[in-house]
């Protein structure tokens, strides 16, 4: 199957008064058509920055300093604003963190979605658009009356479903979902995740799912990447990574996640904090906290992903370890 998105050596940094913050360093991954790709990491690891750079929606002081983003074979890094606008929403669309709270409170939901459709398909009639929206609502499990409702009349779960409908409104090929279910109740989260899976199957969409919750990534994704301090430390098929985690950070992540099934085990946690990304020193950023350090550990060595198994990549340092 063809790759719908290929990211090669993406680097992005923000300039702040305190120095250069290298938020994304040398990130490479690819997403096939119809595939669901997960990016997991903690706060500050760069996963949201990666998402924003894919659509060049990063803050004004952020800049892509290196790398290529190939969408459907075409490099979109160098595109100007108007070319990017034609890709946004109709090629790649995004469900932002906290999106359900960014509905305009004085405009009806249906009208806000119509606005998005009009941007990309200005020739369609109002009826065609309405029908399209009703179709989308059907897929995400919303009642058709929602089209004429205001955001404050909807519950959190309904608003989030509407956000997904909005992301689907211009028939994108790839959706990026950044923590779409934080702040939602666990039962609603389950329903929304179901809807997303259903949508993917029905429309043949590719999905990039970003979260700090490793359990959700386990259930929602075919392939995944683990990010730390701006770089990918391990990447591969989800099942493979969970059954055979190789990077120390991945292992620590799995060992510190409590679960309600299985025996009650004593969990292990990591000491220290993620490093500051301001004027970062070169070398392995996880070394200070690595609980699996061996004598061969060389903290000054730069990270380098090598393949150890079928499609399973991990930093060279951990590749040799068991």
């Amino acid at each position, binding site marked *: 199957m063809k790759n719908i998105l290929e990211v090669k050596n993406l680097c992005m940094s923000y300039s702040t008064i305190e120095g250069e913050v290298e938020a994304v360093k040398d990130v490479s991954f690819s997403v096939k058509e119809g595939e669901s790709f997960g990016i997991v990491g903690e706060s500050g690891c760069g996963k949201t920055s990666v998402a924003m750079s894919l659509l060049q929606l990063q803050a004004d002081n952020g800049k892509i300093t290196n790398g290529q983003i190939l969408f459907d074979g075409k490099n979109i890094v160098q595109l100007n604003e108007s070319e990017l606008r034609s890709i946004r929403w109709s090629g790649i669309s995004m469900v932002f963190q906290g999106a359900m709270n960014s509905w305009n409170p004085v405009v009806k939901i249906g009208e806000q979605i119509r606005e998005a459709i009009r941007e990309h398909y200005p020739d369609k009639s109002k009826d065609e658009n309405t029908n399209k929206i009703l179709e989308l609502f059907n897929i995400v499990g919303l009642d058709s009356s929602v089209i004429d409702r205001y955001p404050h009349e909807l519950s959190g779960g309904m608003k989030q479903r509407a956000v997904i409908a909005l992301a689907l409104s211009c028939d994108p090929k790839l959706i990026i979902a950044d923590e779409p279910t934080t702040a939602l*109740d*666990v039962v609603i989260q389950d329903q929304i995740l179901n809807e997303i899976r259903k949508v993917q199957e029905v429309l043949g969409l590719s999905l990039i799912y970003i979260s700090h*919750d490793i*359990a959700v990534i386990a*259930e929602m994704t075919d392939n995944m990447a683990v990010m730390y301090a701006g770089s990918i430390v391990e990447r591969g098929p989800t099942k493979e990574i*969970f059954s055979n985690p190789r990077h120390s950070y991945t292992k620590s992540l799995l060992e*510190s996640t*409590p679960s*309600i099934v299985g025996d009650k085990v004593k969990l292990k946690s990591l000491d220290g904090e993620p490093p500051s990304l301001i004027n970062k020193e070169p070398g392995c950023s996880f070394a200070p906290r690595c609980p699996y350090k061996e004598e061969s550990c060389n903290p000054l060595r730069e990270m380098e992903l090598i393949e150890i198994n079928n499609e399973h990549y991990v930093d060279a340092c951990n590749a040799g370890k068991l």
Partner: protein
Amino acid sequence: MKNNLLEVRNLEKYFEVSSGIFSRNKSIVKAVDGISFDIPFGSSLGLVGQSGCGKTTTARALSLLDPKTSGTVNFYNEETSSMQSIDELEGEELRKFRRNIQMIFQDPYESLNPRWNIKDIILEPLNIHNIGNLKDREEAVYEILKTVGLTPPENYMPRYPHELSGGQRQRVSIARTLIMKPKFVVCDEPTSMLDVSIRISIMDLMLNLAKDLEVSYLYITHDLAVARYMCDRIAVMFNGKIVEIAETEELLSNPIHPYTKRLISSIPIPDPSYKRERYELDFSELDNIIANNSDELPMAEVKSGHYVATHDVKGIL
């Protein structure tokens, strides 16, 4: 046989809400609608529920922040060796009593005064209750900073909250809470805003301190997995009432109330090969229990220590 530290019976907290033009219509929101539970000494109870179920309101009522509407809350009084209702405490007695109850908040960024340095923040409880002299107090702060893992303490005492990370701030909160050696600490989701890799260290710290100081926790969370890690018993709250309460492993392996079952089945499992069973709402077991509940008890005991609520939930689930 452990004494009970805390006994709650029929705790209710209602809010009046006025709506309509000129606030004409007043309606009552029953945030907490009659809950009862016990917490023995040195044991912890998890209060699990989704947002809006009343768990934070319960926390605030039990920590004496907001007054309850009705119900009895009895704490064990060491001087009289008997349970005493908090309604009887006033003025100076109440102030002394407050030494025994503390609360750890969810937001590490808003629970420390940004204008105070760490030393003063942890000193405050000692100052308010006039414990020891200044030198003793500073030493106590020094020691507790070591205990919670913020070493060397001299580096942390003059700093301000905004210079610390979220995890470090929660440690300061824990230090401040436990410096008075309270018997009862209400924890309002203290790790939900922290990074996953740090959560366990904070939770382990709290568990160790609970053992060393014989503290009982009321641990409030929406995350059942965290409640499992931290608590001996779990109470599931829904719509202002407790629907099920039991020992942790019993609740997870043998849930009875449809709400509990639905909650458990919705939680994602960090294992891609695990097949999660979707739960279809089925009231037959609950109906059975209600039918056998001839004494009209609000909570029926289905097993030793395992209680299920008997009120009608069919319309609202």
